């Protein structure tokens, strides 16, 4: 094969590669990039949904959200969810994954894996009715059992201090199974020889977990953490079906507030400005995670 021919062939391959990438790029352009630019433009406008007219208003939408206590509450709640839901989902997922890895006989493992993964398969809207019944203050199941232990009634959905915790419980119940599955895939790749060697050298279960399992499975754990953090930043469904953001604004996330401004008040300008705020927040958090990952994620 002469050098010229090779070059031409390479060009052909490159073209083919671009062609293969084209559909997803068009999708990205049409469904992500252009809408994001449109949201950015709308955030500087007063947009009338009914007439389709828009007038440029400069930074007034941003001023409005920054001076509105409700956006700040929603922002605080979102950060709360981001920290606790991602720790909860990743942590519980990791613990479950270790428990169903190879401690028990294989058939029992498969049984428990299915059980723990099951919530991820249920549509939240259906199970929310059951969870609401669990969380009822005066006739709920959870308060009934707490009562047997002498714990007085907890206003899971009706007290401002507990509503976020109720959402957290539902969210972890729903999503930890998926985290478990992904981390489990990482655990299955851990060399059993290493664990045995460590055991012979006198490492206890916790040491083996801390010094061998976590570092070796760290790429998977990192991936799951990123997924959970971005999921928690966009948390909507778990809140919508359980508390609707209430009582008051106590469990409302930024995305819920965006939906309310956009689709109930039809204030697209403010909703867009809030979306840009969330975009910046997501960008910052993702950047921190990537930078921070250098210290604890080990790629082989």
């Amino acid at each position, binding site marked *: 094969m002469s050098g010229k021919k090779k070059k031409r062939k390479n060009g052909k391959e490159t073209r083919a590669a671009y062609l293969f990438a084209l559909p997803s790029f068009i999708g990205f352009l049409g469904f992500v990039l252009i809408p*994001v630019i449109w949201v950015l433009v709308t955030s500087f406008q007063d947009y009338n949904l009914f007439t389709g007219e828009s007038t440029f208003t400069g930074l007034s939408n941003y001023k409005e959200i920054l001076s509105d206590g409700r956006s700040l509450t929603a922002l605080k709640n979102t950060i709360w969810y981001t920290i606790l839901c991602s720790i909860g989902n990743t942590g519980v997922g990791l613990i479950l994954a270790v428990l169903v890895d190879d401690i028990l006989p294989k058939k029992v493992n498969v049984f428990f894996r299915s059980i723990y993964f099951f919530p991820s398969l249920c549509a939240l809207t259906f199970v929310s009715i059951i969870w609401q019944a669990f969380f009822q203050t005066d*006739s709920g199941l959870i308060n009934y059992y707490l009562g047997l232990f002498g714990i007085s009634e907890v206003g899971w959905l009706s007290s401002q201090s507990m509503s976020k915790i109720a959402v957290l419980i539902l969210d972890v119940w729903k999503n930890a199974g998926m985290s478990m599955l992904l981390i489990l895939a990482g655990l299955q790749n851990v060399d059993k020889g290493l664990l045995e060697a460590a055991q012979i050298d006198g490492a206890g279960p916790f040491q083996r977990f801390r010094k061998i399992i976590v570092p070796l499975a760290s790429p998977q754990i990192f991936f799951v953490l990123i997924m959970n953090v971005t999921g928690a930043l966009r948390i909507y469904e778990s809140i919508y079906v359980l508390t609707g953001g209430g009582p008051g604004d106590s469990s409302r996330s930024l995305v819920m507030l965006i*939906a309310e401004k956009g689709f*109930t008040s039809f204030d697209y300008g403010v909703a867009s400005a809030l979306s840009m705020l969330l975009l910046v927040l*997501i960008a910052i958090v993702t950047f921190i995670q990537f930078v921070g990952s250098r210290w604890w994620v080990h790629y082989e």
Partner: protein
Amino acid sequence: MKSRMKKLFALALAGTMVFSMAACSSGGSSDSSSSDSSSSSDSSSSGGEGTTLRVLNWGSTVEESIANDAIARFNEEYPDVTVEQTCVPVTEWSDFIQKWITMTTSGEAPDVINLGLEAAQMAVENDLIQPLDDIVSGDEYLTQLKGEFAESLLTGFSVDGKLYGLPSGTQTMVMYFNKHMFDDAGIAYPEDGWTWDEFYDIAKQLTKDDGSVYGYGLASAFFQLTPWWTSNGAYLTDDDGNPTVNSEGMVESVEFLKKLVDEKITPDPISSDVYTMFSSSQLAMVGAGRWQLDAWQDAGLTNDDFDCVQWPVNKEESSVYGGSAWCLGKNPTNQDLAVDLLKEMVSEETMKATAAGGQQIPPTESLATDPEIMGTTPDNISGLWTAITISKPVCAPTYFGDLQTTFTRAMEEVFSGAQDPQAALDAAQSQVESAIG
């Protein structure tokens, strides 16, 4: 070189991820509308010669099939016309308006619309529907029908003296009570015209200290709360449509409700499922309309177990009504055909089918007091119609979406004990004012 490419690639990937997340966030509620169901009564969408009319309806599959039957009758007369029905489940009326606007902007504006009272002012204000006065006065059946509707219902669908909708069904609130609990406690059944004080005393007497029975079940929802201020002579707006969320009467009403919550006469209004609690004998009294009757009878309640009475009175005898009406889009594809389709939607047959659906109260006295349609449970079932004739419409100004969310939030603040009634309503008033600019 290679590592630089890798870095660039990683950066691009990270960028893509961030953007995809942002895109998801701005479409956060899209999944709530994904359950829309569309159906076409005539799927063979013509050879291009027939006109296509679009119906925007709301409700469950029952309402959808009732409308499909009406469309079928319309098609007997006009076989060449294709009618497409879009039926959406409604939890919030602003979602319904959103759907409407989406249809309009994509060139598929609905011609005939079943509109909730909550969204009527919003639709008129934004020029989405047309007045029906000339159409009604020029048609014998419609003129006669208009005379049968409750006056209050027509008022609800009129703006500036012009009628915009022909009611298809309505809803109200009366007080249901558990007869056995009254008998056991030796308390006489309440009668129409009873007062808040009498209500309070009875509810307190019937509440058991161990928490097994509550005297009354309060549901913290916009419609369900409304009779508590209409019966106190208060309302969320004044006659000009300006918000009066923190008026004296409103504060008094909310303070009364807060007292019921604090004294544990009602279970927690935010999380409790009061209708199930009533049918399982955990509540002595609960407010509802017709929509609960089927479920309660399925749960085994009979005329011996419960009955209803008008809402207790503090200043005036009143309650709340809501409902929906068939309206005509501003610029229908074909005005004459759309009018005929509208007439089919309010024909006697369609109305009877809607009434037999069991959820709504029919909008005319003859149907609403007909035992064959309404059933005979409870004994005082005709009280539902009486309630409609004395009621005020659910407060639905052009800024209904903002009013509803802000006010509901304020009530949650009160019931969760975060704010006292005056402070919560003051805050709500100023939030609504700033939202409507």
